[in-house]
C-alpha cells in the first residue's frame, strides 16, 4: 500500500510530463542542485520582477519520478508568488516532509495543497526524502543567488 502512496497518479503524471521543463533566455537568477549518491540533478532558472515576484520559472534536470514530480509541482506553484510567499511555501513544504507537520500556508488553494501532499508519501522512505526536497533547496539557493551547487549530502 505504501508504494501506491508514494507513486500516486499526480506524481507519475508530473514525473512523466514535467511542467516548466526547459530554460528561458532572460532569467536573472539560477541555481544547480545535485544529489550525488543518486545522480539526480536539477537546474532552476528564475525571472524575478522589480517587486521580487517570480514572473517566470523553469528547470532543466534529470532524476527519478519523485525528483521530477517535486520540481514540476514546485515550479507550477511558485509562478507569480512574491519573495515572502516563496520563502513561506518552501518552509511549509520542507516542514511537512521532514517534520511531519500540516501545510499551513494561506497562499495556496486546496488543489495546490493536494498536489503538495501527494509528495508526502516519501516520508515512509527515508532514502527518498532528499529526492523530493532537492528542488526546494535549490530554489532557496536560486532566490538568494548563492554561488555554488546545492548538494543533498551537505545538508545540515
Amino acid at each position, binding site marked *: 500500500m505504501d*508504494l*501506491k502512496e508514494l*507513486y500516486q497518479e499526480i506524481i*507519475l503524471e508530473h514525473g512523466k510530463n514535467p511542467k516548466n521543463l526547459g530554460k528561458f533566455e532572460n532569467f536573472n537568477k539560477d541555481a544547480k542542485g545535485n544529489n550525488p549518491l543518486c*545522480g539526480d540533478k536539477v537546474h532552476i532558472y528564475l525571472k524575478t520582477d522589480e517587486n521580487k515576484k517570480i514572473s517566470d520559472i523553469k528547470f532543466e534536470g534529470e*532524476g*527519478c*519520478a519523485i525528483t521530477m514530480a517535486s520540481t514540476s509541482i514546485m515550479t507550477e506553484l511558485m509562478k507569480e508568488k512574491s519573495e515572502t510567499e516563496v520563502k513561506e511555501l518552501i518552509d511549509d513544504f520542507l516542514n511537512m516532509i521532514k517534520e511531519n507537520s500540516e501545510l499551513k500556508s494561506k497562499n495556496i488553494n486546496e488543489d495546490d495543497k493536494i498536489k503538495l501532499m501527494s509528495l508526502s508519501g516519501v516520508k515512509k*522512505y527515508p532514502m527518498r526524502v532528499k529526492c523530493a526536497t532537492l528542488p526546494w533547496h535549490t530554489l532557496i539557493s536560486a532566490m538568494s543567488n548563492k554561488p555554488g551547487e546545492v548538494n543533498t549530502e551537505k545538508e545540515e
Partner: protein
Amino acid sequence: MNINNIKKQFPIFNNKVHNNDLVYLDSANSSQKPQMVVDRIYDFYTKEFSNVGRSVHYLAVAATNLYENTRTMMQKYINAKDPNEIVFTKGATEAINLVANTFGQKFLREGDEILLTELEHHSNYVPWHYLRKLKGVKINFAEINNDGEITLESIEKSITPKTKMIAITHLSNVTGAILPIKEITSLAHSKNIPILIDGCQGAPHLKLDMQDIDCDFYAISCHKMYGPTGLGVLYAKKKWLDTLPPYQGGGGMIREVKKEGISFGDLPNKYEAGTMATAQVIAFGESIKFLNQIGIENIEKHESELTKYGEEVLRKNNSVKLVGNPKNKGSVLSFTLDGIHAHDIATILDEDGVAIRAGHHCCQILHDKLGLSATARASLGVYNTKDDLDKLNESINKCKKIFDR
C-alpha cells in the same frame, strides 16, 4: 554443490524484508556473511582478545598467531610467493591509496602519466587524482568498446612513453566485463610499466594466482568476499614493498625511534601502522576457509550459469535494456527500464524484498560515457539461485504495472 546448504550458512536469510523472503542481489556492493565468520568475531572478542604483535603474554601471543595465520592463508589463497606480500588495510580503497601515495611520492614527476580505464570505480581514480595537483601528473583513460569491455588493444593504444603506472579493474562493477589482466600485465611489463589491479570484484568470484598473473599490485576488499567490513588486502610484489616508502606512520611499523630520526620496521609491519582491524583479520580467515570449502572453481561455475540465466530472463523482458554486453562477463547485471528511473525501480523492488543497487555505482566516468545518469544493478553471490532472478524479473514487471497505470 548444494546451494540450499550454502544459503543455510548465511543467517541473514532467516530474516524477512517487508514480510518477504530476502532476495539479495547486491553482492557487488557487499556480500552477506556466513555464520562461521560472524561466530569467529564473537569468539575472538569473548575468549581470545588481545592486541597483536606487542605484548608477550599468553593472549597476545595467541592473537598474534591467529592474525598472522590469516596472512598465510591469504598468501596461499591468491598464490603469492611470500606471506610478506600480503598487507592488511582498512579496505581496497586504502590499498589503492597506499600505492598511489607511496609510488607517487617516490617515482612520479611532473608530466608523467597514469593510465586508467573508463570502467574504473571512483576508488581507482580519486587516489590517483591527488597526484595531478601534488606532482603534476596526467591521467589518461583507456576507452571502452560498444560492449562495455576494455580490450588489450585499447590499453596498448593508450600507453605513451610517459606512462609510469597502469591501474585497471579486474572486473567491472557495472558492465561485468572481465579484463584480460594477464595479457595486459605482460604488455605493461614489456614496456617496463608496473600495473595495479583493482580486484574488488574479481577476488570474490574468480580464481586468483598472483604468480601467474604477475601483476605488481592487486587490491582486495574483504567485505565483498564474505568477510568483515573495515578490512582490505593489498598484494604487492616484495620488491615494491621493500622499495616504496611507508604509507602511514605510527606504532608497530618502526624499528627505532630517536629524537633525531626514525628507522622503519620490516615487512609486513612497515605498512601496518597502529592497531589493525584484528578481529576482522582473524574472522577473514574463516571467509577464506568458507571459499575453500566450496571451491572457487565451483563458485565460478555456479555464478557464471546464473549470470547467463539472468541475462536470458532479462533479455526476454522487452522493457529491460542490459548495460554492456561483454563476452567474458562476471556476475553483474546492470540494466535500465524505459521511462522508469533506477531509483524508482530499486524502491519498488525493495517492497518485494529484492535488494538491488541503483545509481552510478561510483562510476560516473562510465555513466557519462554511456549517457546514463543512473542504472539499476543486480549482482550475484554464491547464495543466489535462479529463483532469485525470476523474482527479480517479476518485480521488474511490477514496476511497469505501477508506472503504466
